[in-house]
């Protein structure tokens, strides 16, 4: 029987499909094994890079990703807090907060030192209007750095808002809602930090 005749048989079809699928699966499984560690390392690096963005250089020498506690906020939502240490001594913490912006939740990452002063803030995720609200990104402007060095009480609670609401932080032309949301998230983040400070540093880190 020639190959041409064989190709017409139903059994051959099934065998061909099965063989191709098997070969594809074996190759994929092999490559998956080879790339898995690389992908995991790349994702780890991503997270580390964003954590490092809200801390000054040389601020901590520990692996923040491994030094993590999970806490609960008053409303029951969970917050993962990464702790920064230098030579074993607690120096600060990094955690996520979010607030409702114009289109969706705006998620920010906040770095705070043990004195409750903000080290850095970055926006991790948002869906604000391009060209209006997206100036909160560090790539689009320096606005997000205006939080650095601030703490609860500096400015005072009444002035911890955008200028339109009598606060000290700028809003953008045409957009008030987005900066207002970020300011709110940062304020709540500081309140969370102050309220939970003993708990954040009480649990020893798994070094």
């Amino acid at each position, binding site marked *: 029987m020639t*190959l041409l005749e064989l*190709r*017409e048989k139903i059994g*051959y*079809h099934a065998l*061909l*499909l099965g063989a*191709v*699928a098997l070969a*594809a*699966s074996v*190759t*994929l499984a092999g*490559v*998956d094994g080879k*790339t898995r560690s*690389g*992908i995991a390392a*790349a*994702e780890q*690096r*991503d997270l580390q890079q964003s954590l490092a963005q809200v801390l000054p250089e040389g601020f901590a020498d520990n692996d923040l990703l491994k030094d993590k506690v999970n806490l609960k906020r008053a409303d029951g939502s969970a917050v993962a807090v990464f702790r920064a240490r230098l030579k074993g001594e607690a120096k600060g913490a990094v955690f996520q907060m979010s607030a409702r912006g114009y289109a969706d939740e705006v998620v920010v990452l906040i770095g705070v030192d043990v004195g409750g002063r903000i080290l850095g803030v970055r926006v991790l995720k948002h869906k604000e209007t*391009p*060209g209006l609200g997206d100036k909160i990104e560090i790539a689009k402007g320096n606005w997000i750095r205006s939080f650095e060095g601030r703490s609860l009480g500096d400015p005072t609670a009444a002035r911890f808002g955008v200028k339109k609401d009598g606060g000290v932080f700028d809003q953008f032309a045409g957009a008030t809602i987005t900066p207002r949301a970020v300011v709110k998230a940062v304020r709540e983040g500081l309140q969370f930090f102050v309220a939970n400070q003993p708990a954040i540093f009480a649990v020893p880190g798994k070094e």
Partner: protein
Amino acid sequence: MASYKEIAEQGLWTQNVVFSQLLGLCPTLAVTTSGTNGLGMGLATTAVLAVSGMIVSSLRQWISPQVRIPVFIVLIAALVTLVDMGLNAYLHDLYKVLGMYIALIVANCSVLGRAEAFAAREPVFASGLDGLSMGLGFTFALTLIGLIRELLGAGTLFSQASLLLGPSFKFLETTVVADYGGFLLMILPPGGFLVLGCLLAAKRLYEARRAVAAGPLSPSAQPA
């Protein structure tokens, strides 16, 4: 069988995937928000096109016509998944930009189209060359659209090129208009349609002019 020169010409210009066949428009319109994105997507697709062409061609006498489509799809899907995993592990920054679109290469009809129209009936080397030239034509189109949208939308060219090509290509990253306010429409989806439409019109204008210049008796003046 077409000569190798013809195969290359067809892929790069006369049968260009985007500008002539209007295939693979999903990635064309979705990822071309910058020249770098277009280039990265184009190169990834080129790799899939060339390799899938060669595999399909080398298996062509064993593949029954009745089950050829599922076989092609399994092969292409496996290749795309390989590219996806490889980019994620080794070019992670580019992967973060292109990530969600890489999987869409499977659905890029030009890949299945070339397997069906060319690789299933031509020898291995010609199929590989066809995939390569089709892919490079696709890359050219995507990069061009990406550059135009980037220039009009953000006032830059090849921003973040060093993520894709390595730090030595940093010189490609140009800011054409400093302090540019931004023309968001071009970066948003409608900009892809507008730029593609204008480029198609320009290509047809160019070809019509050439046909007129060649004179009424030349074969290129005949309607295709």
